[in-house]
């Protein structure tokens, strides 16, 4: 209880006291109001003031809240944002031009709860009338048993409306998300596929498991070029009754893979429908002895080390014996050949002699720098380390010089070949756009220019005359390798390959074409070597794909001038400018 006391000298003093103690101080103080009406009025006034203060505080709080609600920013509820994330749990995969390769599609599932159905026959019959594909008898049987049945997992909106209009009891609709691959089997080994509950299990789909869902995963492939590559591979594979085929197109300036095919292939929309063998990516996972294409690496290493020049000569007569191994030529010229002719005529003897001059240590060093000793650091899980010989002596050095005794993936070969012809810079292959594509120099520009001239002669005066693509002046190397078998090599089973680049005078794209065990035909006079199947396929791919890639045909004078001068920069400048534009689009 408060009592207001006032002393004579200083009237505005307050003390807190009990009613009984007031009497003790009455002599010193003058009691002005301790009872009656005045006292009650003062008390009421105090209470009203206190209430007023409380009201003012409440009104002030309400006012502030009112102003905030009226004029403030309302944050969207968290659940609204989470809806869209839940509906798009996996990122889209698109090609370098933005064409859709894989996406999530919202689907409507039709389910029927058997226990809630009054007349299973009626429900099954009416549903079958609207959805002819379903088996009415089987459905009726399941409903009789009271089972919960998912009739269809992919209703269209029109079908949903039709079923809804039937007004059947026990019928329910549920939301589903289906992964859809609109390009079907095109680029299937790069795109990969997923499995329910596991996400992506192969190819870029597996890479997408760790990708931000909001942004599409942009693959380096161009679906148009992919179609050209697959189309031509399939046609030749059929003509030559080959067991399998694979190929790839690579941007030599960045290492980006523009197309990569492995046949037979599969449809990612129904991966289980194809045998497991068809789902294997032969171009990045399988190891092969890819044969004579390795001669270009050996020759480039010899040129770079200064132990050989374009005109250095090598005795390719008869046979060449290294330790206990006799080396002979398939395209036997049986004469002394220049280094250029060794490559042109694919002389095993000549290149084995070059390797002998180079020595195993330097040969290994160059092949290592070409990335042929380790698994490629690509975005696809389907890749493997090369298979190297247990020991690398003179015999191994000689055979590896022409691509026997070392097994690499086809993509290894293409990447190394790109390095030889692109000015000498090694770029790691990439399947996702905008990855770091800085390269490492392996060969000088001069070595690369000499190799381009030599590899051009392979087509004009060597083993690959059918690789000619008018206007694009391709360069390249054939490679026909016997397949390993128990105790040696099978002379009747081969891998026929052609690895080349266009335009030959200033390469922008390297292309690999390979066939597993192609058979001779009447048109090829009983031959099934790379010059008869892989080389012409390469030429057709170039003719069809080059315009899509923005390559313009030139006349012979221009090409000749570029080959002789070896000026890569002048021609690559225009090419790379175009490439940058493509990337920006």
């Amino acid at each position, binding site marked *: 209880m408060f009592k207001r006391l006032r002393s004579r000298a200083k009237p505005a003093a307050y003390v807190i006291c009990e009613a009984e103690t007031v009497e003790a101080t009455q002599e010193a103080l003058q009691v002005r109001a301790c009872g009656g009406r005045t006292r009650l009025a003062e008390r009421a006034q105090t209470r009203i003031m206190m209430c007023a203060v409380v009201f003012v505080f409440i009104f002030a709080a309400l006012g502030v809240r*009112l102003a905030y609600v009226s004029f403030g920013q309302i944050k969207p509820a968290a659940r609204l944002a989470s809806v869209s994330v839940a509906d798009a749990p996996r990122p889209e995969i698109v090609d370098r031009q933005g064409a859709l390769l894989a996406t999530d599609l919202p689907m409507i599932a039709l389910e029927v709860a058997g226990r809630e159905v009054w007349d299973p026959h009626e429900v099954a019959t009416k549903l079958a009338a609207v959805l002819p594909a379903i088996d009415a008898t089987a459905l009726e049987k399941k409903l009789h048993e009271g089972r919960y049945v998912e009739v269809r997992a992919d209703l269209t909106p029109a079908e949903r409306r039709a079923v809804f209009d039937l007004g059947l009891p026990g019928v329910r609709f549920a939301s589903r998300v289906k992964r859809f691959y609109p390009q079907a089997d095109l680029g299937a080994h790069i795109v990969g596929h997923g499995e329910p509950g596991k996400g992506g299990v192969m190819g870029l789909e597996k890479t997408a498991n760790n990708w931000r869902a909001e942004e599409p995963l942009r693959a380096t492939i161009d679906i148009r070029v992919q179609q050209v590559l697959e189309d031509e591979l399939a046609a030749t594979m059929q003509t030559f009754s080959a067991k399998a085929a694979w190929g790839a197109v690579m941007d030599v300036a960045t290492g980006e893979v523009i197309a990569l095919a492995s046949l037979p292939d599969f449809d990612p929309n129904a991966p289980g429908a194809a045998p497991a063998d068809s789902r294997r990516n032969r171009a990045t996972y399988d190891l092969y002895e890819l044969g004579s294409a390795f001669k270009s690496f050996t020759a480039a290493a010899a040129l770079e080390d200064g132990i050989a020049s374009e005109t250095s000569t090598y005795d390719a007569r008869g046979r060449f014996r290294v330790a206990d191994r006799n080396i002979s030529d398939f395209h036997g010229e049986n004469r002394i050949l220049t280094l250029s002719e060794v490559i042109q005529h694919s002389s095993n003897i000549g290149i084995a002699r070059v390797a002998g001059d180079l020595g195993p240590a330097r040969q290994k060093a160059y092949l290592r720098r070409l990335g042929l000793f380790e698994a490629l650091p690509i975005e696809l899980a389907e890749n493997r380390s090369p298979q190297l010989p247990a020991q690398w002596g003179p015999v191994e050095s000689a055979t590896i010089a022409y691509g026997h005794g070392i097994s690499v993936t086809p993509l290894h070969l293409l990447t190394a070949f790109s390095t030889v012809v692109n000015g000498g810079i090694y770029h790691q292959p990439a399947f996702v756009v905008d990855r770091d594509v800085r390269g490492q120099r392996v060969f000088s520009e001069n070595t690369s220019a000499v190799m381009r001239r030599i590899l051009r002669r392979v087509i004009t005066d060597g083993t690959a005359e059918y690789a000619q693509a008018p206007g694009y002046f391709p360069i390249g190397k054939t490679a026909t390798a016997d397949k390993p078998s128990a105790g040696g090599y099978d002379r009747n089973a081969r891998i026929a390959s052609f690895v080349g680049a266009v335009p030959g005078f200033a390469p922008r794209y390297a292309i690999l074409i390979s066939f597993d065990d192609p058979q001779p035909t009447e048109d090829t006079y009983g031959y099934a070597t790379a010059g008869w199947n892989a080389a012409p396929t390469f030429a057709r791919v170039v003719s069809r794909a080059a315009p899509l890639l923005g390559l313009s045909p030139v006349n012979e004078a221009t090409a000749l001038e570029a080959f002789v001068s070896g000026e890569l920069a002048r021609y690559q400048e225009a090419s790379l400018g175009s490439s940058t534009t493509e990337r920006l689009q």
Partner: protein
Amino acid sequence: MIRITTIFLCMLLAAAAAGRYRAEVSVKETRSELRRLETSKLEELRAIQMLRAEVAYLENPNRLSKIAQAKTDLRPSEREQLLTARQLAVIMNGDDAEVARSDDSAPGDVITNAIAMAQLADAE
């Protein structure tokens, strides 16, 4: 004075209650509208997604190639059908003798004869 203050405060209380009620109703309506828009947006996005997938399927190069082979005489372009922009400009200027020299141009954009013919027709 006290009575006036009390009445004023009561009126203020009533006004505040009414204001808050209106604000709450407005917020509810706005949220409801927002939800409707979000749902509508989601449905639109789904429809767009379906259409994009459909377009991608229809533009599948394998599918188009089969249709082109079955229904048209279209074939992959040949080297002779391709011109650079510079060559095209020379042809359009009517100086055929210059075409050979202009063939020396560095790699650049590629224009098919079909486009060239169309542009020539427009020029005429």
